[in-house]
Structure formats: C-alpha cells, structure tokens
C-alpha cells in the first residue's frame, strides 16, 4: 500500500473518491506521522486528534451513504494558529492568547469544514505573524525538515514544515509580507498569497489589515490550486473581500501552459544581495520557462527600493492598533501587577501586555505607535502610503509588458536558527522580494527551483501576477514544476533527509 503521508492532496482525493481508502485511514496515518516526527519539527501548537478523526468519520459515513461530496472531502489539512477555529485553541503564537478558544470559525475555516476537510491541528508561527523564522513564537521555534538546525521560514514556518515533513498534504498560511511564500521557499514546498481580498480575512487575527492575506500551502502547485479554490470567493463579512468570480486556478494548474506568455524578470529583485545558488537555480528555472514556450522580458520597478521601509511603517502602524484589543479585559491572559493593591484596569492592561507580548511584538507596537503620532503621521505613515502607491504604479507599468513577473522568493536559503535573532534588519531583509506584492495587493506564488549548490538547501522561485489574475501563477508554477520534477527525476522533497522517527 502507498504511504498515505507522502501522497499529494490530489492523489488522496482520487483515492478517497474511488473508495480505495477512507478519510479515517488517511487522517490516522497523518496523526501517526505527527506523533513520530513533530517532537523534532514542532510544526504544531495544537493537534486535534479527536476532532480530525470525527470529521473524517463523518465524511466517510456521508460517502458511504452516497452523498455528493466536495473533491477534497476527507483530505486532512493543518491550519495556521492565526485563524479563529471554534472550539480549538487559537494563540497566534502568543502568550497573551494562551488558552483562548474562539466561539466562532473564520470564514475560511467554515469553508474547509463545509468541504469536509478534517482539521488536524493548528500550526506554529512567529508571534502575531511577526517574523521570518518562527523564532518569535512564544512556544518555541519550528524546525526545517531539511536541516533541523535551520529555520523553516516565517511567520508560517509551522505550515511550511508540516507539509514538508509529511504531517499534512495541505496547510493554511497567511502572508502579510511573505509569510506563506518565504517559508515555502526555504522548505522546498509551494505556497500562494492570493490577490488581496481574494480570500476572506474574517477570522484571521489581524497583523496588518491592509496587507494580510490567507492562502494555501502544499507540496505541489496543483494542490495549492485545489485548496485555493476551496477558500477563495466573496465573503459579506469582510468588506475588503473582492466580489468577483474566483479566477480559474485549478484549470490553470492542470493545463500548465505558458506558451506565448511574457515572463518579466524584475531587475531590482535579482543579482546583488541574492545568494549565488539561489540566483543560479532562478536563472535555470527561467530557461525552463523559455523552453516551455514563454518569452522573457526584463522590467524595472524603481520604487521597490523603498518597499521595505514603507512596509515597516505601514505594518507596525496597523499592528499597533490591531493589537490594542489584547488588554486582559474580555479574553486571554490576565496578569495582576506586582505589589499593587486593588490595581486599576489600566494597571492590569499594562502588566498583561508587558508579560504577554514578546520583544518583537513590543518593538513593532512601539514603532507603529510612534509612526502614527500626531506630528509624525505625515512624515511616516503618510509617506509610506505614497510609496505604496508608487509601487502599485510600478507593478501596473510592468504588467503592461509582462503577463507575470518572476524573482527568487527569498534572497537566501534557510539560515540557522539564532543567526538573525539579534539583528532585526537582517531578518527583515529576508522579505525583500515578497513584500512588494503585499503593498500592491497582487497575488504571488512560490515553488521550489532546486537546491542551492553551496548548502544543498531548497531555493524558491516567485511568480507575481496582476490582481485577480491568480490563475496565471498556477499556469507558470505548474509548467515550471513539471519540467523541474522531470529534470530532478521526482519531487524535490524526495531528496530531503529522512527524519528520525520517535517511538
């Protein structure tokens, strides 16, 4: 019998649909895998064995009863701990939400449940999605299955490592500045940040409202497309949700056709600052696309130089306001201040926030509070919004000459845990290529381009498309994946080291 943990979501869907395997068997196999390897990888903050098996049994029963089911019914999934899940703890990787169990489901989670997808558990993340390594999780970092001493990316390192270590075929991530794509890049997996507004944010605990976007994580391009289709679409509970048909992402992934497509290489996102092995795999990938019938053009986006600076004003500004609700009054942690008799509400708020937030969160709250202050607003938040407009203009101009834009996803392969923890700027620079898409609200996908020569670790290839043209990401991604997989003689993760299995 095939190893169910290594099967893709598409393969599992076929097996389940044909009745050759039950959802309980698949779910059980994945939970067993988690029991065996997650002690080392630490993808999960919470595993919901009972809930997942109950959901699997329900789907199996309905299938036996002859009900018409969603194509992914019975395929288990892991969900980033930033999505509200009714009855399941949701901590956002923070002590301040320790033990909080939401009374409601995020819209995205409602859709997963409606599709009959058992939720295996909640994945680790940098606290409130602030970070590129999961080292800022209050519950300890996740580890990269390619090298347990290295980061699995962040903030969605739990979701990237959970699919990379075969604990789940699919996971939900969220991407504010690259938190789906950069973890995918450094773990040899696939991840998509859809168009802003393409997937409902209702129930996504906000980091930066104007940048946050939930999306799929998987091991293949087609799997991401299948999941993308489940979670996308208009939601009346999210004002910023786009009221338009979901782009035909699955069809695009299946056709994998790039003939005649104009591929734009962004001059500002290649070359200097990018690790040689990462750049080499990128160049080869572009050649594969040319071989598949695409045309290559070079484009320039001069305002990208200011993207990181603008991002680190807008994000902390919005975050400082979004995180104000964590005040110990209604839910989550409550800390009594030391040595104060009958403390006031303000004193309890201060003591709780001091104890409940980690350093990176405090750093960004302070930054954002400052940037929004009277007298500084125009210089900081106001200027950053102008840069944002310039970046959107750069993209608009680039998409005049190119159908999609491409770049390496991250400048480097996975760095070692602890390497950049004391150097926030170095950590921030890891998102240099992913941030512009969030600022402009356009979709982006990352897929593996191969292993860097110097360290044998995965490198990522990023595809960007105009807003609501998410299908183009999958055309390019699937075409490139087919050629690369053929060249490698199999999926890239087949070359990852076997994890030691705990007994």
């Amino acid at each position: 019998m095939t190893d169910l943990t290594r099967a893709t979501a598409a393969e599992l869907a076929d097996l389940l649909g044909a009745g050759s395997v039950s959802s309980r068997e698949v779910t059980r196999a994945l939970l067993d895998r988690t029991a065996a390897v997650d002690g080392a990888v630490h993808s999960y903050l919470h595993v919901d064995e009972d809930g997942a098996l109950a959901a699997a049994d329900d789907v199996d029963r309905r299938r036996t009863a002859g009900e018409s089911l969603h194509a992914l019914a019975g395929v288990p999934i892991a969900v980033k701990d930033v999505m509200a899940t009714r009855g399941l703890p949701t901590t956002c990787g923070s002590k301040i939400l320790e033990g909080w169990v939401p009374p409601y489901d995020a819209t995205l989670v409602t859709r997963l449940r409606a599709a009959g997808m058992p939720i295996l558990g909640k994945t680790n993340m940098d606290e409130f999605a602030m970070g590129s390594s999961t080292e800022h999780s209050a519950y300890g970092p996740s580890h990269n299955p390619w090298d347990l001493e290295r980061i699995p990316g962040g903030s969605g390192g739990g979701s990237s490592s959970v699919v990379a270590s075969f604990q789940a075929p699919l996971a939900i991530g969220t991407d504010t500045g690259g938190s789906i794509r950069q973890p995918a890049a450094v773990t040899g997996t696939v991840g998509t940040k859809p168009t802003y507004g393409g997937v409902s944010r209702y129930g996504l605990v906000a980091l930066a409202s104007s940048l946050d976007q939930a999306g799929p994580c998987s091991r293949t391009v087609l799997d991401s497309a299948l999941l993308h289709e489940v979670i996308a679409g208009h939601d009346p509970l999210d004002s910023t949700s786009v009221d338009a048909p979901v782009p035909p992402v699955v069809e695009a992934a299946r056709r994998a056709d790039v003939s005649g497509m104009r591929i734009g290489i962004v001059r500002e996102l290649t070359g200097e600052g990018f690790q040689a092995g990462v750049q080499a795999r990128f160049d080869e990938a572009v050649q594969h696309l040319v071989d598949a019938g695409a045309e290559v053009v070079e484009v320039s986006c001069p305002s990208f130089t200011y993207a990181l600076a603008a991002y680190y004003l807008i994000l902390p500004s919005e975050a400082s306001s979004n995180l104000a609700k964590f005040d110990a009054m209604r839910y989550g942690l409550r800390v009594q201040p030391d040595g104060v008799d009958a403390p006031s509400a303000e004193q309890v708020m201060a003591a709780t926030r001091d104890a409940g937030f980690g350093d990176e969160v405090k750093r960004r709250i302070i930054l954002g509070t400052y940037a929004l202050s009277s007298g500084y607003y125009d210089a900081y938040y106001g200027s950053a919004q102008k840069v944002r407009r310039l970046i959107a203009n750069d993209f608009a101009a680039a998409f005049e000459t190119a159908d999609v834009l491409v770049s390496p996803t991250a400048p480097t392969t996975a760095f070692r845990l602890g390497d950049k923890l004391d150097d926030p700027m170095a950590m921030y620079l890891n998102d240099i290529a992913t941030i512009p898409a969030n600022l402009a609200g356009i979709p982006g996908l990352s897929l593996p381009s191969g292993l860097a020569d110097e360290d044998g670790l995965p490198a990522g290839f990023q595809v960007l498309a105009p807003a609501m043209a998410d299908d183009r990401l999958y055309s390019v991604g699937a075409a490139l994946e087919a050629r690369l997989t053929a060249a490698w003689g199999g999926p890239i993760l087949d070359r990852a080291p076997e994890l030691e299995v705990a007994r």
Partner: protein
Amino acid sequence: MTTTTGPEPTLSFDEALASFDPVMGLEVHVELGTNTKMFCGCPTAFGAEPNTQTCPVCLGLPGALPVVNAVAVESAIRIGLALNCSIAEWCRFARKNYFYPDMPKNFQTSQYDEPIAFDGYLDVELEDGSTYRVQIERAHMEEDTGKSLHVGGSTGRIHGATHSLVDYNRAGIPLIEIVTKPMTGAGERAPEVAKAYVATLRDLLKAMDVSDVKMEQGSMRCDVNLSLMRKDADVFGTRTETKNVNSLRSVERAVRYEIGRHAAVLSSGGSITQETRHWHEDTGITTSGRVKSDAEDYRYFPEPDLVPVAPSRESVEALRGTLPEPPAERRKRLQAAWGFADLEMRDVVNAGLVELVEETVAAGASPAAARKWWSGEVARRANGEGVDVPSYAARIGVTPAHVVELESLVTSGRLNDSMARQAWEGVLDGEGTPTAVADARGLELVQDTGALEAAVDTVIAANPDVADKIRDGKVQAVGALIGQVMREMKGHADAAAARQIILEKLGQA
C-alpha cells in the same frame, strides 16, 4: 486626574455678561434608530439584559471584521442634508486609538478628517420670535462604546469605586456626532440659544424618524464647549467641555453655570484650565474631570478594514427627496392655515402642541378650539406632573376626538362656554366623553324660550332704570341685564339668546 467635589465661585450671570462674550460649541451625539449595529448584525433595542446583544464583531474578538450598516449611512446622509450640509463624495472611517475597558477594540471606529457631511447650518427660533443661525461644522458617523458601571463608590463614577461592570450591548450602536462651529454673538441669550439649538435639532431628527432622540435614555447626548472672551478681545478664550448634559433644561443651566464660573476665574485674574467637566443635574454645577493636555493623541488613521463610503450623487438626491418638511417651515405653513397670531403660535410651539393641534384639526375641530382646549386646564395639569401635554394626554387617554366632540356640543348650542369647561374638566378627571360628562352632570342650556322670556321679564321689571336706558338706545347696557338673566337661569341659558330676547322686549331688535 483631579477631582473637585464642592462648587466653585461663580459670578452672577449679569455681571459675567457685562465683561465677557460667551462662545459656545455644541457636540451632539445621536444614536440612530437602526435595527442593527453600525458594523455588525446585533440588535440595538434599549434595555436588554447586559451583554446579550453582542457578537464577535462588537466584542472586538480577535479576527472579527466590521461591515458598514448601509441604513446608518443613509440616515447620516439624510441628517447631513437636513442640516444643509455638503455630502462627501468619498470618505473613509478612521480609527481613534485609546485604551478604555468599555471599548472592545481599544479603538473607536469613527470618522476623522473625512466626515460624511460638512459645512451646514440650522436656523433656530428663539422665544422672542427671532432666529439664530447655528453653523454646522460637520456630522460624522461613529460607533458607540460599551457602558461602564462603577460599583462601590458613592458617586457612581470611577473615583472611589471598588470594581466596574461593563455592558457591551451599547458597543457598536451607530452614532452620528453633530458638531457646530463656534457660536458667537449670542450674548445674554447664549443659554437660550444652546437650549433652542438642541431642541430644534431634536425636533428635526424626530420628524425625520432617524432616532428616538430620548435624552433621558441617552439616545441623544450633548457636550457643551464654552469659553469667554473679553468684550474688547478678538481671540477666543480657553474652553472647557462639559460632558453628558442630557436634558434641554440642563443644557441651558450648564451654559449659564459655566459662564458664571469662567467669569469668576477670569475676573479674579485666573486662567481657565482646558479640561472636561462633569455636569451634575442635581446640584446644577460642573466639576473638573479629565485635563485635556497636548499629550492626548488618538493616532487617527484610515480604518483599513473598511472600504471608503462613496455615495453617488443620484443616491444623495434620492435621499434628499425623502426629507420631511423642515419643522420651522412646517410651523409657518400651519400658522397660516390655522390663522394663529404670532404669539398664539409661539405658545402652541413652546408647549409642544403642534402635532396635537394638527391632529385635532384633522379630526374635525376648529384650530381655535384645538388650541384653546389643549392649552388651558390640561396644560396646567400636565405641568403639575412635570410632563408635556401630549404625553399627559396619552397617559390619561384624552384624544383629539374628545376636543371635536366638546366643540360640537358648544356649536350645537347644548353647552355654553362655562359648561364646556366643566365638561372638559370631567373628561380630564376620567369621567368619560364630553357628552357623557355633560349627561352625568346635567349640563344643558335651557332651550325653553318660555322660561327664558319669563326670566327676562323678571329682570326687566327689577331694573327699570337700565331698561329705560336701553329703550333710549344705550344698547351696551344690555350686558348688565344678561348677567342677571344668567343668574336667574342658574347658568343654564344661552347668553346670546338672552341678549336677543331682552333687546326684542325693549324695542331694539
């Protein structure tokens, strides 16, 4: 935070006005009467059990997102139009950031520099019939906060309380905040202008059916900004903001009190502290609240969870078409139709009788009768209970139909005026309809001309001198005889008929 409890020195109103001109700014918060909250689908009914009208959105649970209530936006636009404002073609919500336990998100979703309505005015009629034009700076949309109940202290305020309870039912109720430009030049009429403005605004909003505008329930709340400037000065003085002045009478009193207090401080060489003041309804004074310092910074920025509000010009014009006739214009129209003198109309308006008179006329009474019967005894009784006539009438079950019936009893000749007054008192005493009261009390003009003629004969015989004067043409002397005839008939006579018979008998008809 400083808190003073006792009253501060004040100057008399006249003394204050001799040296200073008051400058006022009123901020009125109005809870809209929408069925659901500003950003979620929770109900807005007043008086429900605490925390039963809440959901993830209005509790600010992590991950929840707001969605704008379209009806609230329409109400806001209609209010803006009724206040003669321009309506923004494109505007956004903003976050007003500050920490307070009754604010679930620790920011209030409001509007900052892009209000939905701006630059309008409202004409306010004063008691003497003159008009004061209040310039409106803006009307903007926002959400209400929850309601804190401070327990354990003597005052109900946070000072001295041992703990606090929070009810989030009110959190997220749609509010419109209407802000005036500085109101200058009102002089000694400033308290009256302030009260009249709030009253006019209340009537307008009520007529528009956008809010129940119940100040006592907090669905209309008023903050009074006040400063004084010396008569020879050309810059405004430092202002104070007196919060939660929640009745018309209190608006007038609070303005009057703050004028006196500011004047006392300034006259003694002191300076006014820019601060919020608490209004005490019972003692009629204000006390110091929070000191407003430059450090207070709400860090406003556009609300990223909401899309801009961009009403089309067509939709704005369509909403303009739904506005009711402005109360002031309506009053002018009714006054002309009813043929009331200015003073009569003003009395009707001030007594809050416009609707009642209108209904009574519609039911078939003459305007004069409607005005007469609703403003006499019934007004006295309503005043005695401290309520207005319409609510008093509603409570005791007296209706326009009663007035119509009473008037017809007079015009048909069954009752004279004095009998009608007796019948009306019986109606107000709950004895039944005017006819029933008249029946029960035996009120009826004597229609038998024989009895009347006999009475006239008796009176003429008893007053030969007066009779002679009338025979000689001094017809005005008839009044003395009529009075005696009425006494002879014990009031049950029609005075007009008595006059006619006397004149006939004395050859003057």
